[in-house]
């Protein structure tokens, strides 16, 4: 630590890597398999998924930042409880903001905003990264992981909303005349609304990612 004397630029290659790696090769959902539960629960429609993704980005980034700032003064034996206090304060903040500005989405997300506290990604990043790194890299790492999580959420939600409801952002993509009840031939896929199909969609994303990036395949 002490031998690094010259000042590192804010977006050095190393720091940029912190930002971009979690989006693909170290993606928290598809590679580390964290945060699956909320990925299944909030991805029926795109709008809540995006709000959820933004909330998680904010919470991971700032909890990483705060914990990293105070990392040298946290007694090791009670560090988990300190981390939880920080995370839950941030989550409450996010929850209040959502309630104030996007009330309907906040209703849809219901308990899952509160459950960001237990999202394994946040705790995992604090333990694995923020406790041993400086504030700025920790902040970037938080944003990177939040974005990596959010990206999967949005992809899954896109397919679930498109195939399950025939809409994208509540905007009708599949014409209403196509439906069987209006004399057409089409029907929404009811399975896409159910959580198992979200899991299968995540599985397919993992499949595609690993056949593209063979390094990720474990023996």
């Amino acid at each position, binding site marked *: 630590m002490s031998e690094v004397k010259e000042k590192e630029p804010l977006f050095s290659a190393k720091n940029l890597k912190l930002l971009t790696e979690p989006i693909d090769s170290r993606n928290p959902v598809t590679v580390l398999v964290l945060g699956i539960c909320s990925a299944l629960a909030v991805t029926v429609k795109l709008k809540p998924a995006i709000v959820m993704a933004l909330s998680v980005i904010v919470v991971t980034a700032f909890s990483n930042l705060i914990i990293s700032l105070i990392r040298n003064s946290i007694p090791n034996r009670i560090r988990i409880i300190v981390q939880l206090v920080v995370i839950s304060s941030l989550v409450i903040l996010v929850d209040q903001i959502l309630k104030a500005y996007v009330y309907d989405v906040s209703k849809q997300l219901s308990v899952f905003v509160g459950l960001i506290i237990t999202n394994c990604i946040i705790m995992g990043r604090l333990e694995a990264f923020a406790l041993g790194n400086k504030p700025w890299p920790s902040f970037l790492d938080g944003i990177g992981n939040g974005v990596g999580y959010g990206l999967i959420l949005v992809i899954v939600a896109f397919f679930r909303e498109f195939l399950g409801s025939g809409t994208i952002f509540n905007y009708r993509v599949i014409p209403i005349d196509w439906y069987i009840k209006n004399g057409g*031939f089409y*029907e929404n*896929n*009811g*399975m*896409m609304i*159910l959580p198992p199909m979200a899991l*299968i969609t995540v*599985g397919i994303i993992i*499949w595609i990612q690993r056949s593209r990036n063979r390094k990720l395949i474990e023996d």
Partner: protein
Amino acid sequence: MKALRNYLDKIKPHFQKGGRFEMLHSTFDAFETFLFVPNTVTTKGSHIRDSLDLKRTMSIVIIALMPAMLFGMWNVGYQHALSIDAGWSFFETFWYGFLKVLPLIVVSYGVGLFIEFAFAQPRGHEVNEGFLVSGLLIPLIMPVGVPLWMLAIAVAFAVIIGKEVFGGTGYNVFNPALLARAFLFFAYPSHMSGDKVWIAGLTQGQGVVDGFSGATPLAKAAAYQIEQMPSVYDMFMGFIPGSVGETSTLAILIGAAILIVTGIGSWKIMVSVFGGGLAAGLLFNAFAVNPYMEISAWQHLIMGGFAFGAVFMATDPVSASQTEKGKWIYGFLVGFLALLVRVLNPAYPEGMMLAILLMNAFAPLIDYYVVEANIRRRMNRAKKVANV
């Protein structure tokens, strides 16, 4: 026959290494081994190859399915004729059903085999013949009126998610045909359940006789209309509405006989599935708190897809238990659970599909404990001998 063999031998070099169509090697291989028993000889060690390879096994299952399929075609026409009150001749009836069922079979095979070939080609595998049976089973467990594009999606889902992601034929955890049905059942429930879907042309409702209901015996039983259920003779022979191939217990039993005599299907699983169903039925009879529970236990065995599932689905050698003792446990639980779902869960009129899929998931666990128990027993015996 000879000419065909000669022709195959003539074009074979083109498909081998360095030939013009090398990339289509597995396609050629699939057709060649389908038409002729391969003459592969092992060169090392003393292995004996049974001439009854996978393709021949599958062909026998197809033959065993024929009675159920042909009866299903006739029954589709018969039920339609009943619904519009037309006195059709045998040939008219069969022809109508044939035209209704044929597209289902063509779509099922077309989509499924296309995906199989598409996966086998780049992987350099030979094309597996597992789909030969699944492709015929799928149309037989569908309601006749299912839209073809839904069927195509379900087949694609079953082959890709149910089979290819696990590594292809022989590695699948779940029975692919049932997976296709389960997918449709949850994705498009309005086309897979209810009173209208089991009879061709009933959803359009043209010329349907007043008061005609397409309800299956299971739906009637679930609604406690026991006295309206068809006679035992009708249910056994199969003159009832239902999925294409599942109605006639008689035709299914002929298939079962073929499977058992040739040793392809496990009689242990078949017997224990029926046994499990009977046990659950008798248990219901003993409590009998509602009219559905009062119908005699053996009647359950000839309603709905129970017999079809027991003979053709539960015995799937890949997804069933492998150990002999495990087969008894597996089969018994399939039959027992099927009736539990059927009678106690009002949301699902038929429980066979869900019971078999559930037990598919448990089959490896059953095998594990059977093997462990055997090891422990032999260990104890060995210890006893050692101590004496």
